[in-house]
């Protein structure tokens, strides 16, 4: 039988994988995607707890997290594109200096 434990551990696993991706990879786009995975893991926790407690507040929070994720993706990608224009690379290690 599936209990909330399963969902919590699954979301912890997803969160850890997202964290690993964000820390280990040097490709900025994969780092951004890993951050999306972490947000998804958090959403999963919210939805699971909300199912467990039988209140819908978790759904509302998931909605807000999605809006934040969309904003983050838009800004993040805009920064990536403008950095790529000046540096011609997407490696995070090549972007150590902030001044162009």
């Amino acid at each position, binding site marked *: 039988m599936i209990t909330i434990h399963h969902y919590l551990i699954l979301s912890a696993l997803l969160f*850890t994988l997202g964290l690993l991706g964000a820390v280990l990879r040097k490709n900025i786009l994969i780092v951004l995607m890993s951050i999306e995975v972490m947000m998804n893991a958090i959403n999963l926790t919210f939805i699971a707890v909300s199912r467990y407690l039988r209140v819908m507040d978790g759904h509302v929070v998931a909605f807000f997290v999605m809006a934040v994720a969309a904003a983050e993706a838009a800004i993040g990608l805009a920064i990536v594109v403008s950095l790529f224009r000046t540096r011609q690379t997407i490696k995070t290690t090549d972007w150590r200096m902030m001044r162009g």
Partner: protein
Amino acid sequence: MSETIFFYIFAVISVGMVLLMIFQTNPIVSALYLVFGFFGVAGLYVLLSAPFVAVLQVLVYAGAIMVLFLFVLMLLNLRKEDLVYDRLNWRKIGVGGVAILFLGFLAHHFTRIQIQPFFDLPENFGTPEGVGRLLFTTYLIPFELVSILLLVAIIGAVVLGKRQ
């Protein structure tokens, strides 16, 4: 019974696709794996009787955010040397170890809590109507703030994207 089977199917899809996403050299391929991973998570939302959030997950993540990622990736026109997978070193192994410890810590704490199984739900749980009612009454101010956040993000993206 079928819930268990579906849970494991969706769990394997989401975790497997995220793993594949992390260990890919080509970001376009990993973006696509991530789309399938998001579908797995959407399936989990359906299992948790949150159809509205599940549809939003597909609509927002798979339909908008990942399309944006793919669009940028296609526009960037990456060179071959950007796509090499970076080598394994001690720093990375350390980070991985710490992550596994962190996961074990989380799992340990989760399983120690005594809990009941899932109960039956009220009639309109997770429907657009229920979530919407909550969104426009209790959470009205956060909702408006989120809309301002999105507006700021749009303006920021336009300003950043503009060539000087």
